[in-house]
């Protein structure tokens, strides 16, 4: 077991070889799945999560929302305050974002100043509200880049729901969300644009009428017979 310098470290830390190996594996996992600066999921990890989500949605028809988020005018922060200030901004935004999502959601640094969140089981009606909450949280969080300077940044958010019942690809899904992000940028930044879903909501009233007293479901075979026995009309 004893070759190289590694065992010396493990002995120093008081770890058995097995514990050492476990630490090493954990460290490698972190390296391969996490973004070192922000501690969020990295793009590779996110890709895997998206793929899983697409498979799930294609089977279940459940709603899933993908949000792409981009810090507005980030280049100015870097240019004016330097790259370490830029790093601080990324870290604080990452922390704010992680406070806005549920444990089941996956938050990633997608690259540069772009972040992404996938929200499984997110109803179409709530998509906009969730994204708005995230946008406001970031706008409301001041970022201290040194003892005298505090910045505030805003983000633009684009979102797209996974196509239900259809096996799509992660590229297409991110493209659609990205497209909406561009729209949010073009419309003036610090805003949310979510791809519109065709409205097919059938209200309780409509359902009530569809299966209401107008049509006694005599034709619905055994089911109808059972219902007739249950209720007296």
């Amino acid at each position, binding site marked *: 077991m004893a070759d190289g310098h590694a065992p010396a470290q493990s002995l120093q830390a008081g770890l058995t070889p097995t514990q050492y190996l476990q630490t090493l594996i954990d460290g490698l996992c972190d390296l391969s799945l996490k973004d070192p600066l922000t501690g969020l999921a990295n793009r590779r990890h996110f890709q895997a999560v998206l793929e899983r989500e697409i498979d799930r949605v294609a089977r279940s028809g459940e709603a899933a929302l993908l949000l792409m988020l981009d810090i507005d005018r980030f280049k100015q922060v870097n240019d004016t305050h330097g790259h370490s200030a830029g790093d601080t901004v990324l870290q604080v935004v990452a922390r704010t974002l992680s406070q806005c999502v549920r444990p089941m959601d996956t938050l990633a640094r997608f690259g540069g100043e772009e972040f992404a969140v996938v929200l499984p089981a997110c109803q179409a009606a709530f998509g906009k509200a969730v994204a708005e909450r995230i946008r406001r949280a970031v706008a409301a969080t001041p970022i201290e880049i040194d003892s005298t300077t505090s910045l505030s940044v805003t983000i633009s958010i684009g979102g797209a729901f996974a196509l239900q019942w259809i096996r799509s690809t992660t590229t297409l899904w991110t493209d659609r969300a990205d497209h909406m992000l561009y729209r949010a940028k073009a419309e003036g930044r610090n805003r949310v644009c979510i791809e519109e879903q*065709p409205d097919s909501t059938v209200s309780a009233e409509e359902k009530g009428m569809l299966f209401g007293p107008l049509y006694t479901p005599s*034709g*619905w075979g055994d089911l109808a017979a059972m219902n007739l026995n249950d209720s007296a009309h």
Partner: protein
Amino acid sequence: MSEASSPPLSTASASAAGPSSGARIIAITSGKGGVGKTFVSANLAAALTRRGQRVLVLDADLGLANLDVVLNLYPKTTLHDVFTGKSSLEDAVIAAPGGFSVLLAGSGMVEYSRLTPEVRSQFMNVIQSMAPRYDVILLDTGAGISDVVLFSISLAPEVLIVATPEPTSLTDAYAAIKVLAMQQKRQHVRMVINQTARPGDGRAIAGQLQQVLERFVTTDTGRALRLIHMGDIPADPAVREAVMRRQLLLLQTPGCPAALAISQLAGKIEETLLSRAG
């Protein structure tokens, strides 16, 4: 053969439509999957063919196409190859067992589950170049109301919704009809009820749906969207048999109640949609 017994036949209709106007395009869709949409498309195509119509069925269910499974056809060349420029459209059109033509989507069409401008134009090109050669083009669309489904439906002046009497199927059919009325400004939609338990069920169901539409869905003209009941296909064990054998019902058991109902539906479609010139 039923073609001998139908006096009006298709003769006038086909030629009167002429090469300029081309095929009548009918989208076959459903609010919910698994109600027999592809089964109806394939067998309706066979029934229309038998009546003398030149029929093409286009697999417009790009994401989850299974017309190939229903017809037991696994061609080397598909619409996917046409879209990617690997083969010509002519090579992708194949003859189905019922005597009609099919254009199958093929696997790999997953890439087209998003409606990019390219997919749109490729799709429209395919239809445009096929239209002059046929009397009817049936678009077997996907279920539900995704953008691809709505787009392929939008290419067809006529929509035939397939639903079963099950409450979930009817709710989803109603939802789809509502979207078609609101997004595509359709004034009417046609409907066939599959797997009915007894005669008259389909009419009652369509009547019920119409009542809800009158109340909740008005078109641009201020009137409710009109739901035209085109017929019923009775629940029939022969259907399951044919589906499991991956045979067309119309070839396997042409005399069974469901096959007769589909032939009747073909007759009604011919009468209402194909005999009008242009």
